[in-house]
């Protein structure tokens, strides 16, 4: 990573200095973002091993069981990221040469197909059908693909007609496009649909000239979600109960254990690998609850470092978005940024019992192959955008 890559301002200077050269410079490739991503993925694998080794030994007799699987996915994801980063992102909205259909439509259709399929053949885990079992490879979560689809499709709509976004009608029109995707996900997985809605909302909010509409709408959406949560049937009601009475309710037991873990870490933690709560006390300790174990092992200091890494990552994507050579690139980056930001915030908020329990994973760190590969693909898209930043207008 060269010094210049770190800062877009510096890029400006390089740009002028190298004006006689070709407009596209390799130096615009955001190595900072790449290194940061690889660092997060590496760190994620370390934490995953620490948190999963006990459970893996108990279940499979192999401490590295989860690490090996996640490592394979990380490798696939990194290769995919590097390839995607060298593909021009505009190809997503360009018409395919063979069928004369835009790629984004194909992706949209694929997502709808997968979401419908999962309702019929999905593997039921924890009372919800969210996974498709693929023999020999493992389970696959279609909603993760939907997240990419939402990012690209919303960016595409906003890009093609940014002025329409200024009116409420334009927003509603975009919403109609998105509704099938989001509702199909919402049927089985409310929290993921909240993430999707959030991505869509943020892209629209940034594109539109109006502000107050969105704030009003955000409040309305929050109210709707709250109503759904509070009035929702079955286990959702239990989750609220667990959230409100985390110290006593039996539904709050997973979160309660997480809080125990966080508080027993103290300032500097017990040291990497030294967590005692991961020894079967915190369920899903390598998954949604991984942050609580990080807190226990690395303490407040470690938790702040992890959160700062996410801040840094978001900021990196933000700078790429600001400097992108065209609006579509910017919007893609905003979508990715929204995705990572929302998930990080939601996951940590759940673990700290700030919001009711949801099944949102911590990006790059929680166990989950589909999520990791597709997040790396998204970063690949952002890198592609950074790669195409023009030095001279």
């Amino acid at each position, binding site marked *: 990573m060269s010094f210049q890559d770190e800062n877009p301002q510096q890029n400006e200077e390089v740009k002028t200095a190298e004006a006689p050269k070709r407009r596209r410079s390799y130096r615009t490739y955001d190595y900072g973002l790449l290194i940061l991503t690889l660092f997060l993925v590496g760190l994620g694998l370390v934490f995953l091993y620490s948190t999963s080794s006990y459970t893996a030994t108990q279940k499979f007799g192999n401490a590295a069981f989860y690490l090996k699987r996640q490592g394979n996915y990380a490798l696939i994801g990194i290769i995919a990221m590097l390839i995607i980063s060298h593909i021009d992102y505009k190809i997503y909205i360009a018409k395919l040469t063979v069928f004369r259909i835009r790629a984004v439509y194909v992706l949209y259709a694929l997502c709808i197909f997968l979401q419908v399929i999962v309702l019929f053949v999905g593997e039921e885990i924890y009372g919800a059908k969210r996974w498709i079992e693929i023999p020999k490879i493992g389970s696959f979560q279609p909603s993760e693909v939907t997240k990419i689809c939402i990012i690209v499709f919303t960016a595409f709509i906003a890009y093609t007609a940014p002025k329409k976004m200024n009116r409420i009608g334009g927003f509603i029109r975009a919403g109609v496009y998105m509704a099938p995707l989001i509702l199909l996900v919402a049927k089985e997985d409310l929290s993921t649909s909240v993430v999707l809605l959030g991505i869509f909302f943020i892209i629209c909010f940034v594109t539109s000239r109006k502000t107050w509409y969105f704030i009003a709408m955000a409040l309305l959406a929050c109210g709707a979600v709250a109503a759904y949560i509070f009035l929702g049937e079955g286990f959702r009601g239990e989750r609220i109960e667990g959230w409100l009475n985390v110290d006593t309710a039996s539904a709050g037991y997973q979160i309660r254990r997480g809080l*125990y873990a*966080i*508080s027993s870490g*103290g300032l500097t933690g017990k040291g990497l690998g030294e967590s005692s709560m991961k020894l079967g006390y915190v369920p899903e300790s390598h998954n949604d609850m991984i942050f609580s174990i990080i807190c226990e092992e690395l303490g407040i200091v470690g938790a702040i470092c992890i*959160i700062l890494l996410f801040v840094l990552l978001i900021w990196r994507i*933000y700078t790429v978005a600001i400097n992108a050579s065209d609006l579509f690139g910017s919007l893609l980056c905003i979508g990715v940024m929204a995705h990572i930001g929302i998930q*990080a915030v939601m996951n940590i908020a759940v673990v*700290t019992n700030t919001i009711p329990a949801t099944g949102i994973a911590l990006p790059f760190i929680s166990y989950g192959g589909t999520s990791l590969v597709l997040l790396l693909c998204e970063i690949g898209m952002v890198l592609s955008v950074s790669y195409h930043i023009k030095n001279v207008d």
Partner: protein
Amino acid sequence: MDEAGSRTRKTKKEKKITAKMQIKLLVVFCVFLAALIGLIARVVYISNQDKYKKGALELRSYVTSEIPCKRGDILDRNGNILATGEIVYNLILDPKVALDRTAYTEASLTALETVYGFDDAYLRNILATRSDSSYVILKKELTYSEKSAFTDHVASLGKEGNNVKGIWFEEGYKRVYPYRTLASHVIGFTDADGEGSYGIEQYYNDVLKGTNGRNYGYYDGTLNIVDTVKEPVDGDTCVSTIDANIQRIIESYTDRFLNEYGAENLGVIVMDANSGEIFGMQSNYSYDLNEPRNMSRLYTPEQLALMSDEQQAAALYDMWRNFCVSDAYEPGSIYKPFTVAAALEEACITKDSMWDCDGGEDFPGDVRIKCSNKKGHGHISLVQSIMYSCNDALMQVARIEGRDIFANYQKKFCIGSTTGIDLPGEAAGQSFSVSELNETELATSSFGQGFTATMVQMASAFCSLINGGTYYEPHIVRRIQSSDGTTVKKNEPVVVGKTISESTGAFLKDSLYLTVSGGTGTGAKINGYLIGGKTGTSQKLPRDAEKYLVSFLGFVEGEEMDVVIYIVVDECHDSAKASRCATAMSLFTDIAEDILPYLRLYPEGEINYKLKSVDEKQTVTDPSNTIYDPAYDEGEVNVISR
């Protein structure tokens, strides 16, 4: 790529992110930043919540728990285990943990019901009523196999077995007596709290008990849990002077006797005359130490059903009581050698002095105390007075002695005071004080009537006559050793005092040998052995009830040790045997014959021994065949008429 890029550029004219969008994006970024910073604050807040810290510690910590210690073993003198502790398990339910998740509750209850057959409603009631508790004992004293039945079942459930939570096994010890009934009165038993009752278990309770360990975790000032384990200290082992084989021989004969004839009380003591160590001690029927409340050996179920609670309790106490130590009775004629010993020692009489017996003595108040032979023994020597158990001569000896000497020697022989044997519930008996010893009292006391003594007192005092005058404190525990086998305390023979001189002792031994070879004790002869001893038949109070206590106090001298064997039969249920000391003597010969070779006291002319012993046994056990002179037996009865 280039193609696609240029096409877009052509149609959309290089649309770029506007300044307004950039500001709004910055707002979004700031919202994320704020949210994440807020979450950092939240993490810091949670970190400082002591309740969560404690919660985490409580999950991993345990309530203070006791680590049981092992009660010390009781061994016989050869190291055979008479009493020991066996590991058992208590089944504990922790309702708090079992109720933590519904899956735990269901899996745990199902497992308990399938393995131990608990009632579902019963368990749910416990969970409901004691949900705050972490410790409910469901079952006590499970064996290892009963415990592993549960753990195996849980293991067989596989993944589902992980939901079985809040059930664990607490280790403990259960007192076990491998020989069940052997030496029950000497060993004693332990109650449910692990405290000893009766016998060595009670007397040495503090030694045997040990100290329970403790396992406790506590929070220090910085809320760290500090684990402390106070290791349990196992109780010390008591090595008894009892020899299990000798005891077994004794019990086989006493049981046979009680089964055949029955008696109110039956006592046997076998002890070493030169140390006070007791090899065997038996009183009445033994009871099963593993089930000390089971009286089925003594009573039929119908009899038990008829008894009231008080009667049952009284019967139990009666069964547990050690007759040899706790009961005092009038010893009778076996006291005569002691009277003679005192007189000789104080030179009131000489070994050659002669006595005239006219069949009784008259005392003031129109009281005549008759001799065993109502016609009188005539002119007899001192030795003969012992041999033929002459009351008249002994009354004269006592009169010469006077009350001071008599009382003084009773004290020396520990008659009327406890011997200090290491068994609980020792009775002192009642003897006359000097001022109470008037003419009549002195006269009756001379032949062992009027005062009471215990078997231990008589046997111990007799030992001092045999061994040349050294009174050893009788004891039943030789050595106390720690659980790893190192000796903590050795009970060396304790010399209480000097009773008589060697020469007096030698004279008495001769007299006692003569008593067996040609006097009242011929029934105690054992082929191949030189047996000495004295018979005793005492008439119990009230005298006209004609109830008798017959006894034989004998000894055998060997190269390595001198053994004293004392037999007491109190009110034999067989009326033909009740008043005859041959009853006691036949028991003596049976027991001694088996015990002596075991104690490495071998008969002379061993080749003949076996053949003759068969003869001997037949003659002794056959009541119709009398090898003793019935006249002596008859004469033993001391009748005091007014």
